[in-house]
């Protein structure tokens, strides 16, 4: 993992899903994060394809990563195949949801 990818994961940890209060990382929404050609590429999903907040969560991800890519804007891509399931939630996320 590059230093920029590491920092990107850290920043994504502060992007919250307003409905659950979990970060997009703990919710298991981030499928892939990689640095290529000087830009960050994120492949992510949503808990539901028709989630009304989805587009705003994507924007929050872009905003969080923008300072890491001064020359190239982060590429954020959505994927619903396979669909999200609660199994993707991290142990920390599960613990938070039990509280």
């Amino acid at each position, binding site marked *: 993992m590059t230093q920029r990818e590491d920092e990107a994961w850290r920043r994504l940890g502060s992007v*919250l899903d307003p*409905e659950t209060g979990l970060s997009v990382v703990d919710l298991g929404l981030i499928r892939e994060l990689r640095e290529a050609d000087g830009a960050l590429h994120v492949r992510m999903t949503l808990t539901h394809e028709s989630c*009304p907040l*989805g587009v*705003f969560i994507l924007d929050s991800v872009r*905003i969080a990563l923008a300072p890491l890519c001064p020359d190239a804007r982060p590429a954020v891509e959505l994927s619903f195949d396979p669909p999200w399931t*609660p199994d993707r939630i991290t142990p920390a996320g599960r613990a938070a*949801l*039990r509280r």
Partner: protein
Amino acid sequence: MSAALPPLAGAKDRLLPASVPVPYFAAALAFHGLAWLSLAAAAEWVPGFAGGLGPPLAALHLVTLGVLAMVAVGASLQLLPVALRAPMPLPVAARAVHLLLVAGVPVLAWGMASGRVLPLSLGGVAVSSGLALFAALAAAALARARGSSLVIAHVWTALACLLALALLGLALLGDFVHGWLPDRAALAAVHLAIATYGFLGLLIMGLSQILVPMFALAPNPPARPGWIALGLAAFGVALAGAGWFLAGAIAGLAAALLHTSLMALVLRRRARRRLGPSFVLIGLGWAMLPASLVLGAGLAFGILPRGFAPIFVLVLVGGWLLSTVLGVLMRILPFLATLHAAKRGRRLMRVEELGDERLLWVQVGAHLSALPMVALGAALNAPALVWMGAMVGAVGAGAFLLFAGLVAWRYYELPPRAGAPAELRERGA
């Protein structure tokens, strides 16, 4: 930045301005309090109420039209374009529906309470026009929707019921003036069945397929049993519409048990353990749905005496529909505030941070106390108990109104998002 992929393409443009849906919810909360107060004023006529003009009928329609239909219309106009990727209805038309309902419902209720022809006619025409305009807007949007076909089918069936119930409602109002119906009581029962189990019930069943998994953080329920439940429910409503109430109640009961078991499955698979006060009411609604059908079947079969009719209506409208709608409203009010705040370029705030849950618990407690008190009052022919129950219900409605006011206040106080690049701020990201 990548281009948005098809599922969310144009999502922001399909979100109606907050000034369109918010007045629906504000009106519904105001009518909620007014309905309980009207019931208190009508307390002496509630035991033994068997339909017909009078204060109980007015209180009933303040709930069904003022609260339930108002929330159903407002939530549909807001959520259908976003959740089903349907085109957004014209804001001016959506505002016109609201005006017709807000003006028409109190006038109609006044006419029902007083028996005066003019408010009955004016209110009836205004409400029917508003509902017909809503049906046209929703149908235009649904025709080009690309979301879940199961949800879309629910909404189409609900809209068909809406047209039928509006026509039946007008026929019943005309009968008050002209006395042209041969069997007014039977038609009123059909109107009630189509309004509650048809329009409102099918809309709730459809939107539950999206909202319950989303709120509980669970996978979607399997679609095939959902289709079977829809088929059974539509069949049951059609049977009731033809006057075969017992057969309709049996088909409806099968649909209700299938639907509630699907929702129970969703909750069993949920990741979020704590669901809060809203799901206490939603759970009560799920229990009261089959209970109402059992009572309805008992009345249709003649096992239960006619004196049980007010209790049946209370279980149906208060126990199932009002509980469910209030529970959903508890969740979607702060959710929509977050959604619109994000559209305005405000910080994405946790939904729970926007309100004060203690107020919702007051609403839940009041609702859970008020319903049995009114039911007991109706069963024991004790108007004082009905009055007390209605006043407790009004206290709950006041608490919910305070909660909504708090959400609105915090919505306007939200700070802009920190660190948002200028272009994202400018387009309201």
